[in-house]
């Protein structure tokens, strides 16, 4: 067998493992979020389906899959049907460049623990995370309902205000790692994680990441008490499930990105690299849930204000500062 075929098989196996792993983690992250959030609010959370509610994700999935898939009569049918896939696919695709472990040798062949080590990995991440908003905006628009439309527009406008800060906050990281590749960025953190030298970047990226996942306090596109459910008001069944899935896969992916950019990726003592990576993702997710359990939703203009007048200038300043220190 030629090495090419072998490499292809290994890639397929990796793809399968990552996909199944991501979907399962996303499903259980929903449970973790519900349990953790419940405890923050002095409740128990789901505890009926199985022991400690451990079968709840399966119950939810079965429910989603068997529900009727309603398409509103006045909806733009094709776009309405495709929009959820954009959100879910975008979230899943980003993970392709996230390294989740050390290169390992299997049967004498070097297998990198990343689906694709792009040399422009970071740009790929930004490109896809900006694409994700198409799912939101188009889903909201094609539903032909006021709430959905408002949610979709908010999603698009919100993206404009945080995406810039999201990108700018990572420029210092690229300057320090001297590479756009996520694998190289992790490699650059051999001695210390970047959170120690780039705390401002970390804070900006974290805030933008919360906005990216459309979570409280930046859940304006789906603000349930103002807009019903925002852009996915009209969705039901598994199409709503895809939005939901995309949101939680996004949470994992952003947890992974924060781990890669600031927490040293899969690096860590004693435990195997993959476990370290998972631990970091999990901690980031828990902090995000904690934020959700604590903060109220920002008003629309407050989000804009925060994005344009605080995060972007601070991120720019941070770039200048990092440049000055690196050059001196």
């Amino acid at each position, binding site marked *: 067998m030629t090495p090419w075929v072998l490499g292809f098989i290994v890639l397929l196996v990796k793809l399968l493992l990552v996909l199944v792993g991501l979907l399962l983690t996303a499903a259980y992250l929903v449970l973790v979020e519900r349990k953790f959030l419940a405890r923050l609010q002095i409740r128990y959370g789901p505890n009926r389906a199985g022991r400690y509610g451990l079968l709840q994700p399966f119950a939810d999935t079965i429910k989603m899959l068997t529900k009727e898939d309603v398409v509103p009569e006045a909806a733009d049918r094709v776009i309405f049907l495709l929009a959820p896939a954009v959100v879910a696919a975008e979230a899943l695709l980003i993970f392709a460049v996230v390294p989740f472990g050390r290169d390992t040798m299997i049967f004498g062949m070097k297998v990198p623990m990343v689906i694709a080590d792009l040399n422009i990995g970071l740009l790929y991440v930004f490109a896809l995370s900006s694409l994700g908003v198409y799912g939101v905006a188009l889903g909201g628009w094609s539903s032909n309902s006021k709430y959905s439309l408002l949610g979709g527009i908010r999603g698009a406008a919100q993206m404009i205000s945080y995406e810039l800060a999201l990108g700018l906050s990572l420029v210092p990281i690229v300057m320090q790692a001297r590479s756009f590749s996520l694998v190289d960025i992790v490699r650059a953190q051999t001695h210390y994680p970047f959170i120690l030298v780039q705390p401002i970047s970390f804070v900006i990226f974290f805030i933008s990441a919360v906005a990216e996942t459309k979570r409280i306090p930046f859940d304006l596109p789906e603000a349930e008490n103002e807009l019903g459910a925002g852009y996915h008001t009209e969705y039901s069944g598994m199409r709503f499930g895809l939005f939901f899935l995309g949101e939680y896969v996004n949470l994992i992916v952003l947890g992974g990105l924060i781990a890669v950019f600031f927490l040293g990726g899969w690096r860590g003592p004693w435990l195997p690299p993959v476990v370290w990576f998972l631990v970091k993702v999990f901690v980031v997710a828990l902090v995000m849930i904690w934020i959700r359990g604590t903060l109220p939703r920002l008003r629309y203009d407050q989000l804009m204000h925060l994005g344009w007048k*605080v995060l972007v200038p601070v991120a720019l300043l941070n770039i200048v500062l990092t440049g000055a220190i690196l050059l001196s």
Partner: protein
Amino acid sequence: MNRRDGKGHGRDNLPDLSLEHDGDMGELLEGLKALATGFFTTLRHLFRKPITEEYPEYKRALPARSRARIILTRDPDGDERCVACYLCSAACPVSCISMQSAEREDGRRYARWFRINFARCIYCGLCEEACPTLAIQLTPDFEHCERDILTLVAEKKDLLVNHGGKNSEYNFYRYAGVAMVGGKGTHIKEERPVNLKSNMP
């Protein structure tokens, strides 16, 4: 857009993150402190025991006057209190009560059949209020949902209980609806007649 320009946006600021107001460090600190307080509060809640009462395992005792399943009670002598006067049926806003009156050999009325459609009942308690004999009463027992809606139609045998409900001492026929036996002032809770001639101020 112009409205937001310049200095006119102080009120709309996020107190916690308004870094551009370098002079306002106090405001910033205050905001950070408020954030920290909030996060600490939720964190503390994490280690508290949840206050949830888990329903099927733990059933809170409901107040005696909670309005749920309807019963037909008996008076202390063991007779049915219901005299089939149709007042509950008339008072019912959803017309879920129906019955057929009949008369016993001793002249006391009773319901030949009595039917409550719990699928319609809204548990408003107006039947209980209308009842002159305290026969029909609502109880705190609310656990009677069914998969088949027709099984929610309750007949008299389902409704009739062997106790007096909320006021077990009360017996309508001790107070009213019977011929007077002992003369004036001998009836329950009736005062002796006043002697008009000796009642001078």
